[in-house]
């Protein structure tokens, strides 16, 4: 993989994503600041400002080619992160695992997904190894740099590699900045809610239960 080329492509895709989805995400952030840790509710979807989600083609943690259609028929709870992150990402996956446990039988109606924003390090086997520590029903998604750029663009997720001052040989230890939301999509792949990082399980469980009964 040529770093420069990917870098330019990446910047372009981030700019494109910003142009297309920026307004929607800004709305989400504003909305969250007003409402606290409750997640995004109806107004976002009904206002038509947020077009979150859409078609994607990725590789799952078992190395299989998958598309968004493979996840239709159930709700998805999708979080974008990277396994090298030892602080926030495991906390969020733990939260998602606990939410699924709390949902009980309703958890069967949900595909939990961890999608990487760091495909260079997060290969399918790395994701499989990582996810074996969380809820057994998690699917990991990775892919080429382009595939990851595409799915993040459709979800309005931004990410960037932090410039490192590492010495040669330590360049595998880079950090990533990334948007941190957990998205709830319905059985047809339509956006239902976004939860910000750090949200309490209770609020998330309640919201998911509400959305499931609406379907």
């Amino acid at each position, binding site marked *: 993989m040529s770093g420069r080329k990917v870098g330019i492509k990446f910047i372009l895709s981030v700019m494109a994503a910003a142009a297309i989805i920026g307004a929607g*995400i800004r709305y*989400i*952030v504003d909305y969250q600041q007003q409402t606290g840790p409750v997640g995004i509710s109806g107004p976002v979807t009904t206002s038509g400002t947020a077009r979150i989600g859409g078609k994607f083609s990725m590789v799952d943690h078992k190395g299989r080619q998958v598309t968004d259609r493979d996840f239709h028929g159930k709700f998805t709870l999708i979080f974008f992160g990277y*396994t*090298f*992150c*030892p*602080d*926030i990402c*495991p*906390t969020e*996956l*733990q*939260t998602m*695992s606990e939410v699924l446990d709390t949902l009980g039988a309703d958890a069967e109606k949900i595909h939990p997904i961890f999608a990487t924003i760091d495909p260079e*390090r997060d290969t399918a*086997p*790395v994701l499989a*190894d*990582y996810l*074996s*520590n*969380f809820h057994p029903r998690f699917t990991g998604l990775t892919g080429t740099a382009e595939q990851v750029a595409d799915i993040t663009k459709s979800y309005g997720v*931004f990410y960037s590699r*932090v410039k490192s001052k590492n010495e040669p040989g*330590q360049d*595998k*230890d880079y*950090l*990533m*900045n*990334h*948007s*941190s*939301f957990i998205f709830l999509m319905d059985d047809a792949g339509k956006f239902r809610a976004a939860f*910000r*990082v*750090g949200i309490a399980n209770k609020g998330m469980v309640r919201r998911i239960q509400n959305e499931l009964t609406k379907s």
Partner: protein
Amino acid sequence: MRISWVTLALVLNTTAVSASAAEFKIGNLTVETPWSRATPGKAQSGVIYLTISNRGDAPDKLVSISTPVAKRAEIHRSQMKDGMMTMRPFSELTLRPGSSVLLRPGGLHVMLMGLKTPLKRGGTFDMTLTFENAGPLAVKVRIEKIGARAPTQ
């Protein structure tokens, strides 16, 4: 008889406190409950949380961290800004007199990079914190489960 019961109660109380929280001291600095999270087999990174209190009159600084389980250990802060999660390294951590610095999930933490061995839940490992004035302090870090939000002890 009554006095000895009081004495016994005090002794028991002290024992209970020291057993419930691991404490490491050097000079006026106290490091409490250093804990880590278990890592998957192929993990290259890890994390450590702890609380450092400065009970002295002068400031000190945490200037370096080392552990045999990783090539590098740095202080980082996770920060959420406009929906973006960022991680930023700190070259040193200032410890003001009479105050405590909390390293806990979602904020300040010690980031381990170049992990040499997977961290197994329930185990412990060594870490040395070096302070500008107080000098080096060896502590034991307890390993909790992977997404733990707080130490179990």
